[in-house]
């Protein structure tokens, strides 16, 4: 009887612990995103990426279709080389798609928005996005406004 009680309570304890881990995985964290592992990678070069970070979202018309997987500096082009991992389901993006770095809200995180073009060819693994628009740097804009004022 005593042993039975021990066995049952310890079993319940372990079960409860594992259930808590599952709860943390499914309800609290983003494990669902790890499921769609199948992605293809596209490269985009930007003059300035602002505050873009690895794992930032990649969207089309606001719908999230992937994330930034790598950011590096290309010493030959003197530009930032951003690798986008896009879900394999989204394989219909035209080759002349434009990539822009936008900010979600006034102080929000930066993300990449894709605007499909009109080409019949689609982007595939390893392709480069030719049309890119850099992030807006607030300091540059303020500087431009100030020079406009002073030239008057």
């Amino acid at each position, binding site marked *: 009887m005593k*042993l039975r009680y*021990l*066995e049952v*309570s*310890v079993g*319940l*304890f*372990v079960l*409860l*612990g*594992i*259930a*808590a*881990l599952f*709860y*943390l*995985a499914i*309800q*609290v*964290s*983003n*494990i*669902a995103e*790890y499921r769609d592992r199948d992605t293809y990678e596209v490269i985009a070069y930007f003059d300035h990426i602002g505050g873009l970070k690895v*794992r930032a979202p990649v969207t089309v018309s606001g719908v999230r279709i992937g994330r930034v997987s790598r950011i590096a500096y290309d010493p030959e082009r003197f530009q930032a080389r951003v690798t986008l991992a896009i879900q394999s389901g989204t394989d219909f993006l035209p080759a002349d798609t434009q990539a822009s770095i936008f900010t979600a809200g006034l102080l929000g995180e930066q993300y990449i928005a894709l605007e499909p073009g009109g080409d019949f060819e689609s982007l595939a693994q390893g392709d480069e996005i030719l049309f890119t628009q850099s992030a807006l740097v607030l300091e540059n804009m303020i500087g431009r406004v100030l020079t406009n004022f002073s030239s008057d």
Partner: protein
Amino acid sequence: MIEFLANLGRSGLHWLSVLGRASMFLFRVLRAQDAVVRRYRLTLAELYSVGVRSLLIIAVSGLFVGMVLGYQGYITLVKFGAAEALGGAVALSLVRELGPVVTALLFAGRAGSALTAEIGLMKTTEQLSAMEMMAVDPYRRVFAPRFFAGFLSMPLLAAIFSAVGVMGGYIVGVGLLGVDSGSYFSQMQAVTDWREDVVSGVIKSIVFGFVVTWIAIFQGFDAEPTSEGISRATTQTVVISALAVLGLDFILTGLMFT
């Protein structure tokens, strides 16, 4: 001046020898781990006293820590009009830091001190020597099951703490303060990463469980066999465990969240 240097050297040597004994002890306990399976009833009894009986205090503390986080987080966030981000704030602070650390501190106070006192008393009443006289290996019979029980219980308890804390934050944030239920969880899922946050927290709690149980069992084993010695060893367990957990937390945070 010379006297000061001599004192410093003496205490340094003392701690070094304690560390050496503790490492040898740990090595022998780890080598005796096969007893965990062979004598699973002993392990079961230890899991009950270390894990199951810590459940209540862990769950209640988790609930209250989560509720306080929900409340304080709301007060700060609502100033910036970002009360919807409450879920993320609560979940991240619980999963990354408070879950593992507070659980380890409570675990050291609740289970660690009991382990030390129990083993210290065994040593004082010469039960350990008696076992050796009867060719029963105390490492297999006493230390290995206790070590395994502590090592296994800590991550489970930390996970329960975090999960209950998230619910506590939900009760206060959504139930009392009127944050939207959907955005509480969607914000949470948007900021909390499975591998970087949850798994790192679990790794932390595994490390803490290892260290706290090691300290507790070794302090009991190394206690001076007097009633005073046991009381000192029990105090030392809680103090050293708390310091070790907080120090290790700093190092692990630096290593994992860059």
